[in-house]
């Protein structure tokens, strides 16, 4: 299924005025995001957080980077869906041009990519940006 775009996500989340609806929305997104094949849950793909684990896999298709991501926590999966909307199937240039901090601030979820949260989300964002930078250089 197609996950919503960043613009749709911003609109959707602005519509909710209490935290419960916002979190339910994240949980739904987490449910809808395609599952990663458990065989891909390898040590190399693991980004270890102190509260939950996150896995990431990357494939190159033409000039686009295609990611598969997963987490053992459903709300983290929802947050990953937000990150995927921004980065998945995008060129390295687009990925590096995207202001993820501003996007999470807009969504009022910036605490989730702050260094205090050991949920691996921040590390995933850094990993994606590094992959984009590296692919840019070749």
């Amino acid at each position, binding site marked *: 299924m197609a996950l919503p775009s960043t613009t749709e996500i911003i609109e959707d989340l602005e519509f909710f005025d209490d935290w419960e609806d916002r979190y339910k929305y994240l949980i739904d997104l987490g449910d809808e995001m395609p599952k990663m094949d458990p065989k891909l849950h390898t040590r190399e793909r693991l980004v270890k957080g102190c509260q939950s684990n996150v896995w990431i896999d990357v494939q190159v298709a033409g000039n686009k980077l295609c990611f598969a991501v997963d987490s053992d926590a*459903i709300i983290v999966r929802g947050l990953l869906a937000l990150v995927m909307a921004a980065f998945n199937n995008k060129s390295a240039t687009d990925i590096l041009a995207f202001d993820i901090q501003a996007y999470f601030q807009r969504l009022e979820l910036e605490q989730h990519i702050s260094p205090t949260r050991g949920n691996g989300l921040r590390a995933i964002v850094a990993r994606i940006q590094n992959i984009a930078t590296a692919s840019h250089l070749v």
Partner: protein
Amino acid sequence: MAFDVQQIRQQFPILSRTVHNKPLVYLDNAATTQKPQVVIDAIVDYYSNYNSNVHRGAHQLADEATRKYEDARDTLASFINANSRNEVIWTSGTTESINIVTHGMAQKLRTGDEVIVTQMEHHANFVTWQQACKASGATLLIAPINDAGELITEEFIKLINANTRLVSIPHASNALGTLNPIKQLISEVKRLTADQALVMIDGAQGIAHSEVDVQQLNCDFYAFSSHKFYGPTGLGVLWGKESLLADWPVWQTGGEMISEVSYQDAKWNTLPYRLEAGTPNIAAVIGFAAAINWFKQLDIKALLEHENALLTQATQMAEDFSGLRIIGSASAKVPVLSFVMDRGHPADIGFILDRQGVAIRTGHHCAEPLMDRLSVPGTARASFALYNTSDDVEQLFVALKKVKMMLA
């Protein structure tokens, strides 16, 4: 003297704040406790009125700071019933306290020597010994626990023999709450090794929830942190028997720990200074003494009963809550309730509780091998302190109902 929890709460300014527009329900006390006003005041008073380096200055402020700082050592020594003030070493926390002992032992251990820890260690009391054994060629033995999270005494005893050099056990487990019968375990180690093996206690989770008398315990080292005991962060204590500390390998060099130095060599100061390098955390030491003096005037038996009643209430409610499983059901526990839920990763539980003002800890609690042993990815952990109330416990379960509803 009765224990009036409402009167206690008023002394902790942070407890009246809100989080996400909800009253704060602070249940992350095993990570760090909040601080009473008297502790905050002591720190402010130090910086406002007599801030100075200790032991060095030739002036009034240095005298005042040094006196308060050394008085604090007496306060601590008497609180844990140390034989002498020389046995109280200020460190940066439990982790550094353990590292001083491990670092020294690594120099004494030889191939064939054995060190024993348990399956319930915090990484601070595990990785330290793992690495010391690797470096020295000694063998690290790990005493098993049962499914309730209790040390299996018979198995522990089987590990002790003539090669045992040191045994390090936690007073209580931070992840499960298990309160170990340390007095009995220490005496077994001493008896079975004819007093040859040393015993270290990681007291990080024990000191706030039991009455510690190091002479009565008869261990060799006891380590704890100020910040888990109503005092400031950045400070810990290593208590050790004077006969051992007097020539224990120095840990860091520089500052007050040196007595004589030339371009060729240096001589070390006497206890307690020889294990305290550099300018200490003076404000925290003074704040910690204020915390101890405050704690001492409470009815300690009554407050321990109060904490235990909170644990009993929380355990009862957890058992009645379908879809929730308690992790760690030892018969003796400090007030820690660790659990998992059928639906909901611990991180999800933590996020949803946070939005309701309930602060808990989630994850592996710096005890990854223990999580593997119990076959859980991590747990959600509510941990109580003397200022928590029966209503806090109720609020926890109201918030957990919401978790269940949202993740259904």
